[in-house]
Structures are given as structure tokens and as C-alpha cells.
């Protein structure tokens, strides 16, 4: 009985406590971005039937118990799980809007943000998810293959192009804007984790707000900031990328045995005698041995054995082992953001550490980002401040394979060894013969041997760069719809490269030795003992001020006007200084002085030559001043018709007073028609359809010319008086380069948003481009650089997104396609006097009207002569081996235009899958419509030794070979023209077309699984990049976009936590 009472008591207590564990949870559901209430969100207690809906004010109430999970679900919002909110009274729940294709996207021009729906121009908006899909140290790398019209160039004078290149000699890089201000620093200084979104502006309506700097398109980067009304949010990111060693076998070189056979042949013909007789010039190890045999025939059998052994060596094996390793890139970022009493803040710290695949090279970066937005007096006044600091350290101690070549040769001897069997570093031949080095060292000179592996240890070449950006802006709401803002940005970049070649480095020992004079046992050293320190200091300063009026107002029921007008000044200055210390001892920070004046120091190795001690001192200062006025307005009626216009006037110190006064404004106008909002439109097939068009002018800057007569001191005359040469004749007519852009776009979605996309066609005409044109020489100038050239680009950008399946397994496809056809339309400089030869053999782009700027021209190929394997071309209709004759006969009309060097059709197909918390995607890219010239063999006067090409094995050797090969025979007599003809003939032209599996990513999200006890969300990802070339049109084994294996396979794994 007593036992029963106790039992009941316990039970009742338990019951009471159980009953007390029931509670009604009240709160509000808000949008995380806007802070506005979310109505009709379902609030469910997991595992129970308890469900309620939020009201119009976002308020809800639901009974909960301890350890319950409450699930919030709003239409078009991500589902949120709240674990055990028990014990809290009035909570605020913020839902994140779903990122789906047709949700209202806000694009940023850097001057304003506007809903994409209201845009008339060509914008591409990249959100955080897409940018974070790929893993990289550098933010721009993440733009690869996800923006239609944007290409990464492997050829030409810019790394990136948006819709081709509309300039010839001008700056061809797109303008980068970070947080509303143009950014001229290194992009690697930006931590990608701080980037919220990127907008790419491609046409006149989008970009002309940037006026004279928008000609190449604009990339607007917006970094993350605290959101109004957002709770404290802590995020942590960690990732590691492993970078494969580059494949050194990609370049097909001569096998050691062939190489040695040629060396032997050349040796027998006395080819090396001049070098040998010079007493100092370097000879390859085999040639040294052969001379040894010549001097002492008794050693020949031993030497032959040694040479046979060398045939088994492969320098690439040693290089792969001793110069390279797997690179490891680590990236960490911690971010904190939130909103406390009208102050939203964002703070982040990032750390990157890249151990590069070249042993001894590395990079690390620390970034700190602080941002605050205050509303000290309510909503009327908003103050924003930002500080962004990054510290970058770069070490470059390993030059890679280039550090292995012998002086006077660009190729690497294939049988070199870098270390012996025990891994001890070996010396390799570089500037001098072994005999000479031994003799010099006997005379008391410093060790003159070159050990490539020790060099990496001894080198100390580092760069430190600090990048500071500070900005502040005030925005005051004068009246409803009218705001005035003023912003100021201050940037400072300081970088210092210290290349310290200590006395242990070959560079220092070599320079000291070269100048050493031995006079009867006495050693004089004009270059003092010790290290050599080269310092390059660069300091950039930028100041930008902008004031702007924003106006937006409803007119009537349906009309809406939004406009901005403003004024901006920008000043940037870069100072650089270079200097060198000799006799530098790092330990005591001490240096010695040298005699830079004497210019006839005898050189130890070559008594014929005299020289002064190399002097690196130099300084430069560049200043850019811009002053701009801009206005931009749009009118939308019933969100059906949108009209936009913008204009901008730029002035700069690059141009003379007249150009500034004339002030031709750059302008644009655009029109959009939202057809699907028309009453007559009732298409169910295409429920969303918008047509838009724009027209206008962007500008471009060319800093190489100015309106003033400019000269520079170019030398000293016979009396050592400095004299000046005129660089730029007076050109009062100088003006901005302009790009006229017409853009037509179509946005659509169909089948309940299962299919959506954008199609754009455009024409870009480069006008008044800076180009060279001939002047009558009586003007004093033969070639005039001024606004004389024109280009034209036509193209198409398309992207199509499909949601192939819905339901638990989601499969989406994003298809990107770009067509870009470029050509130069006007170029006045006459064809070089050498005619076709000038274009064909030019090492840089020569504009030719009617052709793309970057084009390949070739000699017409008539095969190999069946008799002797000579390459044949044409003189008129006749085949010929008279190469000078062929060169003379090849003019602009009969040279072969082989095609563009840059892809003209390219894009990607990205498939993404998600199932529950697992998502996976992979990107396949394609590039087409371009050509490349395969490396050929030039026999020169050494049977192709310096060409070092595996094609040697394919050469014509006997009649009949001409049917299987186009590699010419070894000529009886060296003939440079024969080499040139072959190398520049159509025989070596190949299509560049290829398809590759670029990357893949797998993500797993633990958010819903573990609830939000320790963290709200955890993401784990795997990412692989540069995976495999699936198909290429050439059968030479050459990857045209990766011919140096500089894009090795990388594999990353990482973790993302939100607290």
C-alpha cells in the first residue's frame, strides 16, 4: 500500500511536470531580406498534428512541448526547422526566400540597384550560390563558364573579355567595380567569401553609366553586408584544395637518345668548335664528353658508355620529382553579421594559404572586412562605413623548368639530372663550360657552379602587398522618393618586392665573378662580396568622391519614374621605385657601394667585352584624374513598358583642354516591353515574355596617348647632355574611344517556370579607336597614333534553364551559349612593306580590315617534295621550294587566313541534381570556331636541336614519307626561310574545338538533420576542377586551351557552418 502511495505520488508529480511542459509559442515570421511579415506561413510541430498559419502581420501561435521541433514553411521560402524553442515567449523567425529562377532579381550597376524586371539592358546577375559553387582563391576565376558572353582568353592583351574586344591598343580589360567604386587593385586581394553577388553589365543601357570606362563591359562586385532586421549570424568556412602537379610530358620534346645523336653529329661537324674555342661558353654534358674523347682517345669507350647511360635519363622525371609537389590551398573565413538597434554590421576575417605546386613558391592572404550601416535618426539618414584590408604575401623562389635551360638556348637538355641517385643536388650546365669554371675557381673566384635545387633553397624572392580600402557614405531622405547621398572612398595599396639573392645564390656569385679582376694573384671585385637585394616599391593612392540625387515617384496609378543624377571625381596616383643593393648582408641589414659610373670594367669570362655594373634604379609616377557628370532615368508604365536613358560626361587629364571642353557625352537609351502583361496576351505556353532593346555608347581609355606634345628623355648625346625625343605629337583632336552597342533581348519562361531563359543578340562597333595611321612624313611624323581605327562585333548570348524533374529528386539544367564574331573594319596603317609575310610571321596582332584582330595567317601548303622532303609552297599557281620567292609572292590577297585565334562559339552545360539534403552538379564546357598553330620543327643550323621537338621522329626520311607526314626532311643546308615557311604554313594549323568536363561539385547539407542546437546549418562539399578533356578536334594530343598544362586537376573539400 505504502508502495502504491509512493508510486502515485511520483506519477502525479510527473504528471504535473509534464503538464507544465506544454506551452504556447508565439511570434512573428519575417522575410530575412526585407524584414516584412510573411503571411500564411505554416507553422507545424513535427510529429504532431499541431499546425497554424501566420496572419497578415506574420503573427502566429502554436502549442509546443520541450524537445519539439517546429517547422516553418512559407510559400517561396526555404523551410526552417526550429529545434526546441521551448521556454521562449515571443520569437522572431526569419525565412529566407527561395532562390528560384524567376524570383525578382535585383541587379546592381554600382550607382543604383534595380529589379531586373525593370531593366532594359543586358545584365547577368550571379548570386552567392552560383559564385560559391566553384572554389578558388581569386574571385574572377569563379566567373568562368557561368556568364554568357564572358570569356577567359588564352590569347591577346586581356585576361577577360565581355563580348569580344572593341579596342586595338587601348585597355581591353572590363572595368571592375567593387561596392560601387571602380577597383584598380589586384583582384586576388579580394576574398571571395566576402562577395555577395556579381552583376555583369554587357550593353550600353547597363554599362553606360560608367561612361568612358565601360567600353569593355563592367563587372560589378557587391560584398556582403549586414541585413536590416537580421539576427546575429556567425558563419565559418573552411576548405582545402589539392592541386595536381602539372604534366611535364604535355610538351612533346625530343627523346634523349635522338637529342644525343644530333649532338654527336653536330660535334663531328665542328658545330661546337666556336663555343669550345671561346674558352668559356657552355657545352652540354655530352659535348663536353665528346671533346674529352677527342683530347684523350683512350677514354672513348668509357665516354661512350657514359653517353649511353645519359640516353636513359629524362630531365622531366627529375623536374617532376624535385621541382614540383602537389599544391595545397587552404581557405578559411569567419563572418559575423547582424543588426543591433539600427546598426547592421558585417565583419569577416579570411585566411588563405596556398602551397603552390612549384616547391618553394607560395601565397598567403589575410583579409579583414568591416561594414556598418547606421540609422542614427530613424529612417531618414543612413550612414554606411566600410573598411577592407588585405595583406598578401607571395614567395617566388622556384622558376620551374625555365631555370634549367642553358644560356643561349630556350630548351632544356632532356638528359640533365638535377640530383644523383641519393638525391644530392647536382650542378647543371648554364653559362660557362666546366673547364672554364674549374680554371676560374683555381684562380680564386667564387664557386661558379649552378645547382638548380640549391637555388630554390637559397632564393628569397617575396612580395608583400597591403591593400586598404575605406569608404563612407551618407544618404539622406530629403522627401518621399528623393534622397541625396554623398560617398567617399580612399584606397591605398602598398607593395614591396624584395628579391634577395644572397651570396649563396648563383645570380650573386655569377655577377661577382664576372666583374672579378685577377691581377697577379690579387683579386679585385668591383661587385663586392655579399648578396644582391633588388627592391621594388609600389604605392597607389586613390580618392573618389561622389554625390548623387536619387528620385523615384509614382505618377498616377501605373506610372513610375526613377532617376539618379550625380557628380564624381576620381584621383589616383601610382608611384614606383626600384633600386638595388650590392654587397647586401641581411643579418646586419648592411650594404656596400659600387661604382656605377665606370663603364669599362673588364669581364672575367670574355676579355673582349667591357661593361658597367648593372644598375636597377628607376622611378615612375602615374596620375589619373577623372571628373564625371552622369544622369540616368527610367520610366515604367504599368510594369509593362519601361523606358530608360542615361548620359555621362567624362573629363580627364589624359586629354587636352579641347577634348574636355568638347565633352561629347556617352549616352544610352533602352526600351522594354513586358508582353506577358498585356491584356491581349494570354499565352499559356509562354506565361512570361519580355522584349527589350537598347542603344548607346560606352567609352574606353587609352593611356598611351595624350593630346599634349609629349617627349621623354631618351638618351645622352656625345656631350652627355640628356636629350628628348617626341613621343606623341600634339593631337588636339584626341578623344575617347567609343563603343556603339545595340542590344536586343528576350526573356521568357514557360511550362510553369520549368523552362526559362534569355536570348540576346547584339552589335558592338568600336569607333574612334586609337590606331596607327600613316602621315605624310613632311609633317615630321611617319606614323600617327590617334582615333583612326574601327572594329565591329556581332554576337549572340543565350542561356536556358530547365527544371527537368520536380519531386524529391530535382534535376536542373543550365545551358549557356555565346557566339561572337569580331572583325576590324577600319585600320589605316598600311600593310607592312613585307606584305603577307608581315601578317603571317608577326609575333603580335596586326589589325587587318575585314579580319578579327587576333587572327592566324599562313602560307599555302603544297605538301612535301617527294624527292627530298622539302616543304613546298606556291608561287602563283606553281608549287615551289624557292622560299624567298614564296615570301615575296605572298601578299595580302593570297596569304591564307586560317581563322580566329579566340573561340567564336562557346558555352557550357551545367546539370544540377538535388535529393533531400544532397546536391550535386557538373559543368561541361565547349569552345569552338577557333584555330591554333601547332608547334613545328625549325631545323635551324643544328638539325632541329634547339627546336627540341618530338616531331623530329616524324620527319620525312625517304620518298613515300610525304604521304604520312608533313614534317620536312633535315635540309642539306641550313635554311631559315625553309624553317619559317613550314612553321607558318597551313600544315600546322588546327582547329581548337574541344569539349571538356570542367568541374563537379557535391554538397551535403546537415541543416534539417541536426536541427539548430549548435549550428543552424552545416554544408560539406567536394569539388573538382579541370577534370578531363572529353573531346578535341585535333589529333595531335594538344589541348589548345591548356598547352602548357597550367590548368592542372584540382580537388577540394570543405565545410561551411552557420551558427
Amino acid at each position, binding site marked *: 500500500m505504502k508502495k502504491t502511495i509512493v508510486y502515485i505520488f511520483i506519477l502525479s508529480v510527473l504528471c504535473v511536470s509534464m503538464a507544465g511542459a506544454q506551452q504556447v509559442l508565439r511570434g512573428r515570421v519575417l522575410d530575412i531580406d526585407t524584414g516584412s511579415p510573411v503571411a500564411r506561413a505554416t507553422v507545424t510541430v513535427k510529429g504532431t498534428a499541431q499546425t497554424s498559419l501566420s496572419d497578415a502581420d506574420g503573427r502566429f501561435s502554436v502549442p509546443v512541448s520541450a524537445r519539439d521541433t517546429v517547422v516553418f514553411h512559407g510559400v517561396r521560402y526555404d523551410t526552417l526547422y526550429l529545434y526546441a524553442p521551448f521556454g521562449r515567449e515571443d520569437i522572431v523567425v526569419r525565412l529566407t526566400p527561395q532562390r528560384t529562377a524567376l524570383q525578382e532579381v535585383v541587379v546592381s550597376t554600382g550607382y543604383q540597384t534595380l529589379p531586373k524586371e525593370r531593366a532594359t539592358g543586358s545584365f547577368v546577375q550571379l548570386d552567392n550560390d552560383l559564385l560559391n559553387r566553384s572554389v578558388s582563391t581569386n574571385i574572377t576565376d569563379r566567373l568562368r563558364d557561368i556568364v554568357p558572353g564572358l570569356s577567359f582568353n588564352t590569347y591577346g592583351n586581356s585576361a577577360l573579355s565581355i563580348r569580344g574586344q572593341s579596342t586595338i591598343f587601348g585597355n581591353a580589360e572590363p572595368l571592375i567595380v567593387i561596392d560601387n567604386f571602380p577597383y584598380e587593385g589586384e583582384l586576388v586581394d579580394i576574398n571571395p567569401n566576402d562577395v555577395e553577388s556579381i552583376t555583369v553589365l554587357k550593353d550600353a543601357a547597363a554599362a553606360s553609366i560608367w561612361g568612358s570606362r565601360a567600353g569593355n563591359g563592367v563587372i560589378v562586385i557587391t560584398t556582403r553586408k549586414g541585413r536590416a532586421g537580421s539576427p546575429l549570424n556567425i558563419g565559418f568556412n573552411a576548405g582545402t584544395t589539392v592541386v595536381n602537379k602539372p604534366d611535364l610530358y604535355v610538351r612533346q620534346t625530343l627523346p634523349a637518345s635522338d637529342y644525343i645523336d644530333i649532338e654527336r653529329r653536330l660535334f663531328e661537324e665542328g658545330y661546337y668548335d666556336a663555343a669550345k674555342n671561346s674558352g668559356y661558353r657552355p657545352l652540354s654534358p655530352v659535348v663536353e664528353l665528346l671533346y674529352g674523347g677527342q683530347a684523350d682517345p683512350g677514354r672513348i669507350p668509357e665516354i661512350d658508355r657514359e653517353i649511353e647511360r645519359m640516353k636513359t635519363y629524362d630531365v622531366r622525371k627529375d623536374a617532376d620529382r624535385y621541382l614540383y609537389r602537389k599544391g595545397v590551398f587552404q581557405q578559411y573565413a569567419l563572418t559575423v553579421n547582424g543588426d543591433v538597434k539600427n546598426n547592421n554590421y558585417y565583419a569577416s576575417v579570411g585566411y588563405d594559404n596556398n602551397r603552390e605546386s612549384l616547391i618553394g613558391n607560395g601565397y598567403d592572404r589575410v583579409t579583414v572586412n568591416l561594414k556598418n550601416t547606421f540609422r542614427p535618426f530613424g529612417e531618414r539618414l543612413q550612414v554606411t562605413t566600410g573598411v577592407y584590408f588585405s595583406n598578401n604575401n607571395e614567395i617566388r623562389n622556384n622558376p620551374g623548368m625555365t631555370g634549367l635551360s642553358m644560356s643561349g638556348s630556350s630548351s632544356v637538355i632532356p638528359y640533365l639530372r638535377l640530383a644523383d641517385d641519393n638525391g644530392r643536388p647536382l650542378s647543371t650546365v648554364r653559362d660557362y663550360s666546366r673547364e672554364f669554371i674549374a680554371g676560374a675557381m683555381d684562380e680564386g673566384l667564387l664557386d661558379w657552379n649552378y645547382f638548380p635545387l640549391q637555388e630554390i633553397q637559397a632564393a628569397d624572392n617575396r612580395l608583400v602587398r597591403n591593400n586598404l580600402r575605406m569608404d563612407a557614405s551618407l544618404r539622406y531622405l*530629403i*522627401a518621399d522618393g528623393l534622397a*541625396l547621398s*554623398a560617398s567617399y572612398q580612399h584606397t591605398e595599396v602598398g607593395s614591396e618586392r624584395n628579391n634577395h639573392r644572397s651570396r649563396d645564390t648563383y645570380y650573386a656569385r655569377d655577377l661577382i665573378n664576372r666583374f672579378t679582376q685577377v691581377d697577379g694573384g690579387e683579386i679585385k671585385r668591383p661587385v663586392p662580396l655579399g648578396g644582391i637585394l633588388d627592391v621594388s616599391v609600389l604605392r597607389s593612392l586613390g580618392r573618389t*568622391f561622389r*554625390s*548623387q*540625387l536619387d528620385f523615384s515617384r509614382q505618377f498616377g496609378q501605373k506610372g513610375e519614374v526613377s532617376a539618379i*543624377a*550625380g*557628380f564624381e*571625381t*576620381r*584621383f589616383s596616383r601610382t608611384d614606383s621605385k626600384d633600386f638595388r643593393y650590392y654587397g647586401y648582408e641581411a643579418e646586419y641589414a648592411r650594404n656596400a657601394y659600387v661604382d656605377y659610373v665606370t663603364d669599362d670594367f673588364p669581364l672575367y669570362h670574355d676579355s673582349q667585352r667591357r661593361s658597367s655594373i648593372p644598375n636597377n634604379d628607376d622611378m*615612375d609616377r*602615374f*596620375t*589619373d*584624374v*577623372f*571628373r564625371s557628370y552622369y544622369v540616368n532615368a527610367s520610366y515604367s508604365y504599368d510594369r509593362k513598358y519601361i523606358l530608360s536613358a542615361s548620359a555621362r560626361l567624362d*573629363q*580627364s*587629364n589624359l586629354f587636352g*583642354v579641347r577634348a*574636355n571642353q568638347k565633352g561629347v557625352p556617352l549616352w544610352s537609351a533602352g526600351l522594354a516591353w513586358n508582353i506577358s502583361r498585356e491584356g491581349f496576351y494570354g499565352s499559356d505556353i509562354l506565361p512570361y515574355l519580355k522584349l527589350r532593346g537598347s542603344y548607346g555608347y560606352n567609352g574606353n581609355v587609352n*593611356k598611351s596617348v*595624350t593630346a*599634349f*606634345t*609629349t*617627349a*621623354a*628623355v*631618351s*638618351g645622352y*648625346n*656625345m*656631350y652627355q*647632355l*640628356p*636629350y*628628348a*625625343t*617626341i*613621343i606623341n*605629337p*600634339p*593631337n588636339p583632336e584626341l578623344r575617347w574611344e567609343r563603343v556603339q552597342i545595340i542590344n536586343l533581348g528576350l526573356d521568357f519562361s514557360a511550362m510553369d517556370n520549368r523552362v526559362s531563359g534569355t536570348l540576346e543578340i547584339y552589335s558592338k562597333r568600336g569607333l574612334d579607336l586609337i590606331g596607327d595611321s*600613316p*602621315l*605624310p*612624313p*613632311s*609633317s*615630321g*611624323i*611617319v606614323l*600617327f597614333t590617334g582615333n583612326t581605327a574601327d572594329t565591329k562585333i556581332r554576337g549572340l548570348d543565350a542561356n536556358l534553364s530547365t527544371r527537368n524533374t520536380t519531386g524529391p529528386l530535382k534535376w536542373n539544367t543550365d545551358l549557356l551559349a555565346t557566339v561572337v564574331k569580331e572583325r576590324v573594319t577600319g585600320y589605316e596603317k598600311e600593310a607592312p*612593306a613585307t606584305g603577307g609575310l608581315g601578317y603571317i610571321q608577326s609575333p603580335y596582332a596586326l589589325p587587318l580590315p575585314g579580319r578579327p584582330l587576333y587572327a592566324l595567317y599562313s602560307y599555302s601548303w603544297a605538301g612535301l617534295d617527294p624527292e627530298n622532303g622539302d616543304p613546298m609552297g606556291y608561287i602563283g599557281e606553281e608549287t615551289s621550294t624557292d622560299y624567298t620567292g614564296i615570301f615575296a609572292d605572298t601578299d595580302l590577297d593570297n596569304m591564307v587566313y586560317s581563322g580566329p585565334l579566340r573561340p567564336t562559339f562557346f558555352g557550357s552545360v551545367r546539370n544540377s541534381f538535388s535529393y533531400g539534403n544532397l546536391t550535386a552538379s557538373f559543368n561541361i564546357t565547349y569552345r569552338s570556331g577557333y584555330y591554333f598553330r601547332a608547334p613545328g620543327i625549325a631545323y635551324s643550323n643544328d638539325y632541329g636541336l634547339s627546336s627540341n621537338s618530338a616531331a623530329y621522329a616524324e620527319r620525312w626520311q625517304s620518298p613515300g614519307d610525304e604521304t604520312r607526314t608533313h614534317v620536312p626532311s633535315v635540309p642539306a643546308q641550313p635554311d631559315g626561310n625553309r624553317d619559317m615557311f613550314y612553321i607558318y604554313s597551313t600544315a600546322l594549323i588546327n582547329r581548337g574545338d574541344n569539349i571538356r568536363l570542367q568541374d563537379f561539385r557535391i554538397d551535403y547539407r546537415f541543416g534539417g538533420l541536426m536541427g539548430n542546437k549548435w549550428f543552424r546549418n552545416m554544408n560539406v562539399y567536394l569539388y573538382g576542377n579541370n577534370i578531363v578533356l572529353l573531346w578535341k578536334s585535333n589529333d595531335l594530343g594538344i589541348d589548345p586551351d591548356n598547352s602548357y598544362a597550367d590548368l592542372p586537376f584540382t580537388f577540394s573539400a570543405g565545410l561551411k557552418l552557420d551558427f
Partner: protein
Amino acid sequence: MNYIKTAVLILFFSCKGDLDIKPDQGLLIPTKLEDMQALLDNVEMNRAPGLHMIAGEEYAITTEGVTSLRTAPERNSYLWADDVYEGSVPSDWRILYEQVFYANVVLDGLNTIEVTEENRSVWNQLKGSALFFRSLAFYQLIVEYAMPYEKGSADKVPGIPLKLSSDINEKVERVSIRDCFKKILSDLDEAGPLLETVQSVYLTRPSRHAVYALLARIALYMQEYGTAEKYADRCITLSPGLMDYNGLSRTSSRPISFAQAGEEVIFPQFMLTYSFATSSRAGISEDLLSVYETGDLRRIIFFRDRGNGVFTFKGNYSGTSSMFLGTTTAEMYLIRSECRARLDDIEGALADVNHLRKMRWDSNVPYQDVSMEDREEVIRFILLERRKELAMRGLRWSDLKRLNRDSRFETTLERTAYDRTHILAPQSDRYAFPIPQIEVDINNLAQNKRD
């Protein structure tokens, strides 16, 4: 209202944004006098054209030697070919107009600089220098690209374009040779008083001395013997010294250093680089080599045996491989001597020529002054002495053009190459080089006849 005021204020508040700042500090925008001096100190200002050298009488080159000449204009000039430039722009024309351009940049720039007490002398020197350089270039253009000067017909003979401003877009046309000389002479008259009398250190800069020497040279070309004598005389008064060739090395391949030559050099010019100047196959004509008498040191010091009967020139006053083509005191003695002879002062003429000859005579060989009475004989003797002394100085072409006006002294040039004999008749149109085609095309300049 207040809002608007504030708005306007903020909107147009401007940072210090000076649009006059130099974009690149390394650039020199020639606005200061020292910048202009740096422009005129440019080594290109002392360059002289060279195609007339190889077209003249001093070379005799084998077919093989002609083929070995590096550029088409050199080969074609030697053979007085129909097409000289084969589409290229001749360096001679280009460099001379470049000098004109530099001079014009300085002259236009000087107009914007106020003359003050402090800068007056520098300003004057620069203005005089620019006028001198421009006139010198114009004169050399006339010698190469216009037909000879004759007083009677000078207003009908086309000269050259006189480019007088630095505006590169300005169109130009050829003006008569009389107007050309009128401008040259008046500019030189203006330049003279502005310049320092002599350049004691920087010989490459113009002086009044250099102006007189140039005026003497031009007046001789115009056959204004009285004027030529006057200016030559002024030069000799300013600096009468001559080198004694006995002090020079007879074996050296560079027997005369520029410093040594400085004693005689009035204003130095150096020929543009052409392959014939350094080619071992571009030989001196036997005709020239044979005029030197035994005992004349110039034969030994000037010429070098390259074997195979080829002699090349080594007597450059530059002391380097570049051809010296400037004015010297010796030339002034020769001008004065010739003018005196032509003006019937035989005694004075012979005094000058003997004075010069003596300085060139081997002291180990007995020397005797020449004496003769016949005026024409004296002139012939002086002209021969002129060939000997001024060999390879770029004066033969202008001398031929001048002397061919007088049938007593005219010369028919003849050379054999490519199995053909090429002849340049004394009155040939080919004494004026063709105008570059691009000038004909763009500026519509009248082309020289080449019948």
C-alpha cells in the same frame, strides 16, 4: 529651399581634381626652355641625308657589291633607277622633316613663353637654334629633291614644301626654289644675331659661326660668289686654324678623332646609317683615288685598301664609323678661294688653297706652293683640291648640280653594273630625287620628272 541649397552644394562639391596633372611623370611636355633645349640636343638633329652620296661621283661599286647593299633605295640611288624607293619612305626625307618638326615644336613653344630679362639669352639661343636647324634641313632637302638653282629660272623650278608649323594635320605644297631660298636666307639672317658667336664646348649646338658657314655653303650653291666669300671670310676670321695631317696616324682605321677634328669642325652632322657607308664592297672610285699627288697625306689617311682593288673611306672626322658631313674651316678656305678666283682675286685664291694644301702635305716629301695665272686653270685647280679635301663629305652632289650649270665644268657620270652602263647626263632630271609617293598621294605634291 534649404534642401535644394544643400543638395546643390553637395552635388557640386569637388575634390581637388586637377585635369592638368601629367598622366605620366616621366613624360616631358615641352613647355620650359630647358625642355626645348633637350629636344634640340636630340642626336637626330645632327643627322644628314645620305642617298645623294651614293648617287654621286665618289663610289664605284661592282655588281656584286651593289647586290650586297642592304636596302633597295641604296641600290637604286647608285644606279639612278626609275623607281628609287620601291614603296618605302626614304629615311633622308623623313629625318629632315623630323628635324623641321622638332624645330617647329620649339618655335611654336617659344611663342608661348614670355621673354624676360633672365631668360632672354637662353630664349634667343633657342630661337636661333631652331631657325638654324630648320633652314639647314630645308637646304639639304633642296639639294636632294629639287633641280639645281639658277637665278633666272628659280621662280619656276619647284622647290620643296616649307613646313612652318608643328601642326601635323596642316597640308603643305611645294613652293618655288626661289621662295625656298628666300625663306632660308631670311631665317638664317634672323638666327645669326640671336646665337652665341661660337660654341666652345657643345659643338652640336648651333652658333653664329655655324650660320655663317651654312650661308657660305648655300651662297656658293646659288653661285652668289660675293656673298659666299663674305661668309667664308667671317668664318675664317672666327677660327682660322687647320689640322696638320702630319700629326695623324697613317695606319689607324680611325685616324681622326672627333676631338682632334674639333679644331676644324664648325658644325657637325653625321650621315644616316646606310650600308654603303660601312660595306667593305662599296669601293671608292678610281677616278677620285687618282687625283691625289704623291705626298698628299689625305690619300693615305682617308682611304683603306680592302683587297681586290677595293678602297674604302676611313677619314671620318666623327672618329667613328658614321660619316661626318658637317661644315669645317677647310671648306671655308676652299669656298673663299674659289670665290676669290671667280671674282678675279687669283693671288688671294691661291693663298687660301696653298695654305690648306700645305697642312695636308707629308713633311717628309718636299712641298711647293702652286702658282698659276689663268683664271679658269686656277678654278679647276681649286675644284680639284675641293674634291680631294671634301671627299666623302656629302658635298659632291651639290657641287655637281652647281657646276653642271656651266659647260666648262660639267661632268657626265657613268657606271657599269649588271652588265649595263648607266649614265647620268649633266642636265638630267634625275639630279632631283623622287618625292616619296605618300607625299604625292596625301599632300598632292608634284612629283619630280624622271625621264
